[in-house]
């Protein structure tokens, strides 16, 4: 039984519709019995890194990751309410890359919302992306949850506006990890003022879900798994009872709890990244809760990439990771411990060898 089936069964129990559920299409059951405020899910696709080669040629492997995710989301039953795209649609922010990515995503038969990634941003500071997808930061309500989307990959004005001879150079510098010419990501003053005003209108008991590209916590500065003003954002989110931050960028499974805020990362469709711990020289702050995903098999190009089905039924987020050719992972909010837990691997003794060898 897949993980999605498992969460579906839980839903059916609470809906008191187990007998009907075995004969009815699940989508219909959800429409008939769910309390809209209590049960819904959305799919999350992230970090496609569509990379232009020349003319109408793009890197085949990264293309295939996004195409597969789109096809699989369209086949989901029950249908998610919407799809989030978590940033880094493009690799170098060019029009051909953004157009090609937007075209692939246009095949989704669901509403799509977008987060800005640094690979989408640093060529023209988001101008073309905005034309295609809308504002860089915004909020919306959905079935009793307040969703906030931030552009968390901005940085110092001096770095952005005065350091580089060309926009292409600026993009290239920001596009690589482990780059001494890079600069830490931040949400910045302007958006924090906006965020404060946005949150002022929200009841403290309303569940909050923040989407950002970078982690809104500090993990490893060398690879920009980092948000410089993370503490200030966390302080703004502190008064609320249920807060979740969902971020892309890191191309790996991570989860953490800082005070009242749960952090969950999403997978990439392009390629996996190792955990900073595999870089021996590094000082890093990988969350203690994170259990490494299985070591990627380099001979299988989709390994350690994927998308995730996210359930916000309780106001906290539960993530069901679909890992190609691998055992699925479920990171669920534990209401007793008040933190996300990997259902299968949290105990050290439960881990499997591919999670220790990375």
């Amino acid at each position, binding site marked *: 039984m897949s993980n999605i089936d498992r969460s579906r069964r839980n839903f059916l129990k609470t809906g008191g519709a187990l007998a009907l559920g075995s004969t009815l299409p699940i989508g219909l059951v959800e429409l008939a019995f769910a309390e809209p405020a209590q049960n819904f899910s959305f799919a999350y696709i992230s970090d496609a890194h569509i990379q232009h080669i020349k003319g109408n040629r793009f890197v085949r492997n990264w293309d295939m990751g996004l195409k597969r995710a789109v096809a699989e989301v369209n086949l989901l039953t029950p249908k998610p309410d919407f799809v989030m795209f978590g940033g880094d649609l493009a690799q170098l922010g060019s029009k051909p890359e953004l157009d090609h990515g937007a075209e692939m995503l246009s095949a989704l038969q669901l509403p799509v919302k977008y987060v800005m990634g640094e690979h989408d941003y640093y060529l023209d500071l988001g101008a073309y992306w905005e034309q295609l997808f809308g504002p860089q930061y915004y909020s919306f309500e959905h079935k009793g949850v307040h969703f906030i989307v931030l552009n968390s990959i901005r940085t110092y004005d001096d770095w952005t506006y005065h350091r580089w001879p060309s926009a292409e150079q600026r993009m290239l510098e920001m596009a690589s990890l482990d780059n001494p010419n890079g600069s830490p990501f931040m949400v910045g003053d302007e958006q924090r003022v906006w965020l404060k005003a946005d949150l002022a209108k929200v009841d403290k008991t309303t569940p909050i879900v923040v989407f950002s590209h970078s982690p809104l916590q500090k993990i490893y500065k060398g690879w920009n798994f980092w948000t410089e003003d993370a503490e200030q954002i966390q302080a703004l989110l502190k008064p609320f009872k249920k807060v979740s931050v969902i971020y892309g960028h890191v191309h790996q499974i991570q989860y953490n709890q800082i005070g009242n805020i749960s952090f969950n990362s999403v997978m990439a469709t392009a390629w996996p990244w190792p955990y900073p711990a595999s870089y021996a*020289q590094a000082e890093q702050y990988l969350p203690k809760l994170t259990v490494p995903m299985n070591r990627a098999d380099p001979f299988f190009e989709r390994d350690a990439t994927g998308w995730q089905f996210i359930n916000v039924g309780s106001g906290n987020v539960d993530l069901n990771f679909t890992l190609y050719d691998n055992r699925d992972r479920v990171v669920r909010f534990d209401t007793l411990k008040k933190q996300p837990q990997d259902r299968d691997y949290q105990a050290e003794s439960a881990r499997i060898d591919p999670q220790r060898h990375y």
Partner: protein
Amino acid sequence: MNTVKPWMPLLIVCALTGLTCPAAADEFNAEDQQRWQQQFMASVQQGRALWTDPAMGSNGVVCAQCHPNAANTHPETYPKFQKQLGRVAPLWEMINWCLRNPLEGQPLAADDPKMIAIQAYVTYERRGVKLEPGKH
């Protein structure tokens, strides 16, 4: 100790005649060490440059995209059994797999200076990590 080493007569001749004699294998000084280190680091730097160079492949993809700081390359564990190849393989064969596949480029000969530089770089980044050949 009264054993006569075979090179001793030569040493004596050299000393008597004032000719320059070849140094024994383990005689090296700080200058030698410095030169060797410079040569090694030059290779490491070349390797780092290749690591981020789109010209290594044909599609713009670079090694550093999947392996920032050469992370997850595990040079200290090679040669090792690669189940996908079905045999024990050295690091350079794995590097060539990456050049052929994600980078869609041409493989390098084992003794190509570029291949040596790449291996120097990934090995340098793993300094301090325990040598565990064949581990995983």
